[in-house]
């Protein structure tokens, strides 16, 4: 019969039936069920296997602290390993598999480990598997790895999308139980911006799980209705606050679509909210703690409060005949509620000799459960009675209650530690809470409903300076918690059920000297499972304290770290994945280049044309060689918009550039451009570029593409922090201008067809390194710089970005008569190497002006950033690396950037390393590969023959050290 353990009542919608599958078998449940409650309703207790011993396991809890009932949810690319059945909302068509078992959940071959548990005690692996050394990777580890782990990933890209969002509030209330709801009412009615977040899909907390807490039945619904009507209150159910970060920033994950079969189109699966809260009130409630006894981990044995939740909220009983083992009154609530739903209560075993008696069921006063039986599910428990006699109690489920622990988790996220409360025999929030956070209700050790309601209202009223809302009449039972952690003499009594840490393991840990709480945790793995020890840490701590003869707080306190519950990595990544990982920057000629079939390459966040293949070109080298040759022969055009551009203005602009560049700029004439080398204060080259002087008080500075942001930041530092009284203003104009290099002997002729006739750009009127404002194409404002990266006669022309596309097309049209050729970054690189210009590979953050062959540029006549520290001996050694050119002896040989230079015939090892190759390319101009590199004392070694080795790419070639200026060393072309 289906749902044979379904009982009356509950918060489920019986009108609707949902079908779902677990391990290939189909079942039915209702909206409002979790996977666990629906399985229990169908009389399924066995839901998982433990990590180490593969013991059969059923749910221990009804919430997010669950260690046992974790499954692989969904299928295909959406497979979610380690999903708690106790919080997974049931939806129609839900698919779940048990995990960490083979071949099946009912029969798990790995359960053999349980037989050998005596050998597999805490830390056994540290003591063996050492010989022979090689066997670890080859034999032992593969076996261990295969056995380890829990659920499995689909190995396919997560198909769902995740959002990130930002919200602000005066008060963030974490937990929508009695305390949280009253706090929200209080602050909400007071007109404050309130966010009330709860991990559950139903607001109400214990009010949904318990009976008879309130005198008026409909208070909860009325309250939720009022809160939803308040515009200044945002109710966020299915939202887990995962962490309390600095200055009132909270991370919260909203599960938007996890209760659906698949997310709706365009909607995210989850949202990571960054909540900026002026203050926060933690109302996270409490977690019940178990009592350890022999074989206390069988399916059917669960926390007493969880039993109540399943029966009251989900109308599902774990079995038809249930017993209770408790050391406090809460256990009796379970018995009463079970009775009310017509479930047979086998007995209440109460450790207290003076436990209250009941007419409706048997109470075994002073009794203790000492063992349990039932292979895949509980059949009966062994009870030791007050008089020492033994008896068995037949039952399919056992509710265990050892009292309650306040959920102090988030109070520890800024490393504040909880304090021990003897009255409650539990840790309560300590003095050092995250700034702005307060705690109310059970989370603060106030366990009665009345106490929770009023403490929530009072706290919110005090924090917000408003009037406290009036609490409804509610139960106000006094709290009596006497610690009872484990049953005397037990050994295989589980503390951490998922990681299989037993009382025996804690004892061994103590015996071997691992006694601090951190050693205990790390040696036994106690509390390191997916539940992070929410139900187990206290027990382990208490037992360690007893063994060490210390009080619990002396042994140490467990420190909680974010996240509160395990959080999908996907939601922390949000939309920043795939092509959206980083923003993409497109150059003004991008769309034109795309039409031309350009191949693009990522340069930082930019996409740049790498080369422009023509029909028939089958290898990139063909395209690049053609682009280089055509440019050197006639004219080529390259989009160099990506170079950083910084507008520098002010009466001290020149003085300012004198500080940031190691070479001088004060005397640069208006209408002229100069190359500048920028050093870091530590004397190492930071960046290079050109500065064109458009007016006495106006420069346009260019930076390398990679360093644009860094250089701007550095210049602002120099301006604001070092020379605050300089009259200089900076602003980036990188993207405002489309800038194209027009290079080659015919570049002037081409530009003369574009530049308005009023502007004379002849060699006389506009010589090498000239710059100025011009107009093109009938009056469009533009800038022209006569600078050359290629070594050819060349210009860089800039127009407002929106006209860049049209200008490029115009250049191509006007250039037809010169066979104008667009070239990409590869040809650009080849030509700059042929010319010996340093670029990113040479400016690698470790090279000095001296290394770059620009030692003399560092002006001694003035102070500039980096000039002083560049004088240190280590940066001026006699055999300092100097930039050189490298040519293979045999033109057919390859040269590899990253290869190292060795003496011909000398030993090939690090001790004899002479230098390295920074850049290499095939030069169609020289007909062989060429390279730039740094060579010890390179300045004096031109003509030397050396060996270039690159063992990692299996290359050894003989090379000649030559001048780095392969093409036009005298620089005649650029001045032509």
């Amino acid at each position, binding site marked *: 019969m289906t749902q044979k353990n379904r009982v009356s009542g509950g918060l489920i919608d019986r009108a609707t039936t949902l079908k779902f599958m677990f391990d290939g078998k189909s079942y039915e449940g209702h909206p409002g069920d979790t996977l666990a409650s629906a399985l229990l309703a169908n009389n399924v207790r066995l839901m998982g296997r433990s990590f180490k011993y593969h013991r059969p396991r059923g749910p221990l809890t009804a919430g997010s602290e669950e260690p046992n009932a974790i499954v692989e949810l969904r299928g295909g690319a959406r497979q979610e390993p380690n999903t708690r059945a106790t919080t997974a909302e049931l939806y129609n068509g839900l698919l779940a598999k048990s995990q960490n078992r083979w071949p099946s959940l009912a029969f798990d071959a790995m359960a053999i480990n349980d037989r050998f548990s005596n050998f597999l005690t805490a830390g056994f692996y540290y003591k063996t598997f050492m010989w022979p050394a090689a066997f670890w990777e080859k034999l032992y580890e593969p076996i261990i790895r295969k056995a380890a782990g829990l659920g499995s990933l689909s190995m396919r890209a997560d198909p769902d999308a995740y959002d990130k969002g930002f919200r602000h509030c005066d008060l963030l209330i974490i937990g929508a139980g009695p305390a949280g709801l009253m706090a929200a009412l209080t602050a909400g009615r007071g007109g404050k911006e309130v966010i009330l977040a709860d991990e559950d899909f139903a607001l109400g907390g214990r009010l949904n799980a318990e009976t008879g807490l309130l005198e008026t039945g409909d208070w909860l619904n009325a309250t939720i209705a009022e809160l939803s009507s308040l515009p200044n209150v945002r109710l966020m159910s299915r939202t887990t606050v995962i962490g309390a970060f600095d200055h009132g920033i909270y991370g919260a994950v909203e599960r938007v679509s996890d209760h659906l079969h698949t997310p709706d189109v365009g909607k995210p699966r989850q949202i990571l909210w960054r909540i900026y809260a002026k203050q926060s009130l933690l109302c996270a409630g409490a977690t019940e703690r178990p009592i350890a006894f022999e074989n206390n981990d069988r399916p059917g044995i669960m926390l007493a409060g969880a039993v109540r939740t399943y029966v009251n909220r989900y109308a599902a009983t774990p079995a038809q005949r249930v017993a209770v083992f408790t050391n406090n009154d809460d256990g009796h609530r379970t018995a009463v509620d079970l009775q009310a739903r017509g479930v047979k209560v086998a007995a209440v075993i109460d450790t207290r000799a003076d436990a209250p008696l009941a007419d409706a069921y048997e109470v075994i006063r002073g009794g203790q459960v000492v063992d349990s039986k039932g292979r895949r599910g509980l059949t009966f428990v062994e009870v030791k009675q007050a008089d020492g006699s033994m008896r068995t109690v037949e039952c399919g489920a056992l509710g265990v209650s050892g009292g309650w622990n306040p959920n102090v988790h988030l109070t520890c996220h800024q490393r504040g530690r909880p304090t021990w409360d003897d009255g409650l025999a539990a840790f309560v929030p300590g003095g050092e809470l995250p700034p702005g956070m307060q705690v109310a209700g059970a989370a603060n050790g106030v366990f009665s409903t009345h106490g929770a309601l009023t403490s929530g209202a009072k706290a919110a009223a005090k924090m917000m300076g408003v009037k406290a809302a009036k609490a409804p009449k509610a139960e106000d039972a006094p709290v009596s918690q006497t610690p009872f952690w484990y049953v005397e003499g037990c050994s295989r009594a589980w503390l951490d059920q998922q990681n299989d840490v037993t009382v025996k393991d804690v004892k061994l840990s103590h015996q071997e000297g691992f006694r601090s709480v951190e050693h205990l945790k790390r040696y036994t793995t106690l509390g390191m499972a997916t539940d992070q020890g929410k139900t187990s840490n206290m027990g382990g701590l208490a037992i360690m304290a007893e063994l060490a003869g210390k009080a619990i707080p002396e042994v140490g306190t467990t420190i909680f770290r974010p996240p509160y519950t395990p959080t999908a990595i996907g939601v922390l990544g949000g939309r920043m994945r795939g092509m959206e990982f980083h*923003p*993409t920057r497109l150059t003004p000629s991008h769309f034109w280049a795309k039409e031309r079939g350009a191949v693009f390459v990522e340069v930082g966040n930019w996409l740049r044309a790498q080369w422009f293949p023509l029909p028939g070109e089958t290898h990139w080298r063909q395209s690049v060689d053609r682009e280089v040759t055509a440019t050197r022969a006639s004219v080529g055009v390259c989009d160099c918009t990506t170079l950083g551009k910084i507008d520098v203005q002010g009466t001290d602009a020149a003085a300012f550039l004198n500080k940031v560049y190691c070479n001088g700029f004060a005397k640069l004439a208006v209408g002229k451009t100069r190359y500048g080398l920028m050093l870091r204060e530590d004397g190492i080259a930071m960046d290079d570029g050109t500065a064109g002087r458009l007016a006495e008080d106006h420069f346009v500075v260019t930076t390398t593409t990679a360093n644009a942001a860094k250089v701007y930041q550095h210049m602002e530092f120099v301006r604001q922090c070092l020379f605050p009284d300089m009259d200089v203003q900076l602003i980036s104009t*990188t993207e405002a201008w489309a800038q194209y290099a027009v290079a080659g002997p015919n570049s002037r002729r081409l530009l003369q067809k574009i530049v308005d006739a009023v502007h004379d750009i002849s060699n006389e009127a506009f010589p090498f390194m000239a710059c100025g404002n011009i107009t093109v194409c009938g009056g469009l404002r533009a800038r022209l710089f006569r600078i050359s990266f290629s070594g050819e006669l060349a210009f860089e022309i800039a127009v407002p970005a929106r006209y860049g596309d049209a200008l490029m097309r115009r250049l191509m049209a006007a250039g037809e008569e010169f066979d104008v050729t667009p070239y990409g970054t590869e040809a650009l690189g080849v030509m700059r190497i042929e010319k010996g210009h340093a670029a990113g590979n040479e400016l690698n953050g470790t090279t000095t002006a001296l290394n770059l062959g620009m030692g003399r540029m560092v002006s001694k006549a003035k102070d500039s950033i980096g000039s002083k520290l560049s004088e240190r001996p280590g940066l001026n050694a006699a055999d300092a690396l100097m930039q050189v050119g490298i040519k293979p002896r045999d033109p057919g040989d390859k040269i590899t950037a990253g290869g190292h230079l060795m003496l011909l015939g000398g030993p090939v090892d690090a001790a004899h390393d002479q230098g390295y190759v920074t850049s290499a390319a095939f030069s169609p101009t020289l007909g062989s590969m060429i390279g730039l590199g740094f060579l010890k004392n390179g300045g004096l070694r031109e003509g030397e023959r050396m060996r270039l080795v690159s063992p990692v790419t299996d290359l050894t070639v003989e090379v000649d050290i030559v001048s780095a200026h392969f093409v036009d060393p005298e620089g005649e072309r650029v001045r032509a």
Partner: protein
Amino acid sequence: MSVHDLEPITALGGAAPQVDTVAGLTCTEVTDLALASVAARLGQEKACAKKLKALLGDAAPGPGKALLAAPFSAMWMGPDQWMIGADFATHEDLEVQVKTALRSTASVTEQTDGWCCFDLSGDGIAPVMELLCPVNMRSLQSGDAQRTQIHHLGCFVVCGDPDGFIRILGPRASAGSLHHAIVTAMQSAL
């Protein structure tokens, strides 16, 4: 005005501005906006402010604020630094116009094509914006102008009417990424 014959393209690469509508919210690419930055020269702060007031017809806005006026609007960018806006058709040479007005009291730089611009108008601005940036939409008022980050892009968010109109300025070269982020958020939130 220049009589050149070069056809401009929009930041998204089209001949005409792009418009996207999801539910009751419309995102419109804006191209008819000329921009120029103004930074007061050292010691000229007061003089600059005075001339700016003359140009704008009102005091230059303070930190976090914008002056939504015509023909010139203004937005605070930094200490003694503003972004001036005007209609592109009539003010393509905005830099020159502003420079003429401020003379030696300020450094003026053309910024027109340094930025792309998107207007959000209609219902649902708040839920969309809270998926994009940390600006507190619940306290945002008309005339607020905040620099913030949208999917790692440094942007300006200018509030015309918190319930009906927001203008987003972002780096022009990343117009595609910014537009994608905005439209994706619209589809997600609305």
